[in-house]
């Protein structure tokens, strides 16, 4: 058997094997579908499969190769998408009963088109909190997604299906969405990589829900796969230099202080400290106005999430998920001045963050305050204090959400213990710096995304 079919094979390995003819795209897809059939019932990551479509695309790739045609950089690589992203032939439910009976999508979202133009093959849709409102992927329509590393624990959210599918070895790539941390948070709890790209660089064509500060982003099990996926899905500006593998030489690295050293438990602190040691970071940098930035981002997102749902709140309230129903009702009633003032702060704060980046290139931060809590846990205890689970899991992702800057969760090796990640944060359009740091951590053996046994 070729290595490209082994459990945990990377996207880069699979694409190389398909391009060389060591394996067919058809066999990759059949192996993937068999893994999903065997493992998905336990973790509930996929909510819909595109079996015929995936087989048809695989056959097309194999025919292209057989006829001497050129294959894309992600040839034959299976991927899944958060259930808010249109896949032709699948109903885009966004995890909501309100959309369960909607017509199937007739065209693919732009990100799906881009990835498939690069040769990747979409195999289905992945579970999420209803309309992305939540951090634990406990969904009344489909049931909760379970963390592959411990099935009684949450996968995080709202892109929990994506993170769980990667951690279970179902697919090597997934596309999630992140407003307040919905990529970075589940990536940390499931021990995979997740990138929130620079806002505005990924098309949202064909995507349901999500407010103005949200963006789609790639998730993967290696830094190289994450970069390859990001390269394929983004709208690159003309003449942009390609990202290199130049290590971290010349990069000014810092570790977040103040807010980012509070409300983290021993696991989270250990992950950050080990990453700082591996990167030889001694300099502490204060992220400006973190607490206010968190409050403003939450108010902005809160105001924007009910847009388009007013009629449903009036007439189909019982069809909302019990986990989100009361929150959507509160959100739609929020005074506009709270939103506008939060936006004024955000605009000013972007300038403050720009000033911070005059002295540092990449900032190392915690990703989550702790490892994955058990499903259904209303509060989590940190430093002896019980805090509400949902907002607290996003304590370190939320302050970055309004900045427009890219942030990347890197999984830290844990010797069989539950996974946890760290965040890397860089100025707008400097994803290449994030990849360089992530690859250095990976090369040092500190960043590892383990497939759950």
């Amino acid at each position, binding site marked *: 058997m070729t290595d490209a079919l082994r459990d945990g094979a990377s996207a880069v390995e699979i694409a190389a094997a398909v391009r060389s003819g060591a394996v067919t795209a058809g066999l990759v897809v059949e192996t993937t579908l068999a893994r999903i059939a065997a493992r998905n019932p336990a973790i509930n990551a996929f909510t819909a499969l595109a079996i015929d479509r995936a087989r048809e695309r695989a056959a097309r790739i194999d025919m292209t190769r057989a006829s001497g045609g050129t294959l894309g950089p992600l040839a034959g690589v299976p991927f899944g998408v958060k259930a808010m992203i249109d896949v032709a032939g699948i109903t885009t439910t966004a995890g909501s009963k309100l959309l369960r009976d909607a017509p199937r999508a007739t065209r693919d979202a732009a990100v799906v088109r881009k990835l498939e133009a690069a040769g990747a093959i979409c195999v289905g849709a992945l579970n999420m909190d209803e309309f992305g409102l939540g951090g634990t992927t406990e969904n009344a329509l489909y049931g909760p997604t379970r963390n592959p590393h411990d099935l009684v624990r949450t996968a995080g959210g709202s892109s929990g299906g994506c993170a769980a599918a990667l951690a279970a070895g179902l697919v090597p790539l997934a596309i999630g969405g992140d407003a307040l941390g919905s990529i970075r948070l589940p990536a940390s709890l499931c021990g995979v990589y997740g990138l929130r790209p620079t806002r505005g660089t990924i098309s949202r064509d064909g995507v349901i829900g999500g407010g103005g500060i949200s963006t789609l982003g790639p998730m993967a099990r290696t830094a190289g796969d994450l970069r390859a996926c990001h390269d394929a899905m983004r709208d690159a500006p003309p003449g942009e230099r390609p990202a290199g593998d130049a290590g971290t030489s010349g990069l000014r690295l810092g570790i977040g202080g103040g807010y980012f050293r509070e409300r983290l438990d021993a696991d989270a602190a250990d992950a950050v400290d080990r990453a700082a040691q591996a990167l030889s970071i001694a300099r502490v940098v204060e992220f400006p106005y973190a607490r206010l930035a968190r*409050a403003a981002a939450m*108010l902005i997102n809160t105001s924007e999430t009910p847009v388009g749902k*007013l009629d449903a709140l009036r007439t189909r309230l019982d069809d909302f998920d019990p986990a989100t129903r*009361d929150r959507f009702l509160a959100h*739609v009633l929020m005074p506009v001045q*709270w939103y506008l*003032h939060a936006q004024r702060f955000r605009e000013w704060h972007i300038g403050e963050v720009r000033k911070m980046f005059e002295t540092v290139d990449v900032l190392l931060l915690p990703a989550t305050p702790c490892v994955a809590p058990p499903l259904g846990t209303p509060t989590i205890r940190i430093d002896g204090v019980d805090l509400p689970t949902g907002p607290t899991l996003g304590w370190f992702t939320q302050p970055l959400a309004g900045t427009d800057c890219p942030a990347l969760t890197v999984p830290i090796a844990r010797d069989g213990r539950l996974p946890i990640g760290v965040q890397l944060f860089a100025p707008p359009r400097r994803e290449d710096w994030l990849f360089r740091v992530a690859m250095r951590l990976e090369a040092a053996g500190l960043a590892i995304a383990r497939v759950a046994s």
Partner: protein
Amino acid sequence: MTPFDACTYMDAAAAALAVPIPPERRDAVAANLARLHALAQEVLAWQPPGDALHDPQDP
């Protein structure tokens, strides 16, 4: 300053938007509004530097 009364505000805003709040949902919706109010107080306490009476129409 008058304390924020989440229930009174909820009833007025829900009437303005014609969104009925079922009796069994009132407490939870009001609690969510109170949480948002607490966040808003943090943000409203911030004023743009040198811009306390800024007119949004000004350049």
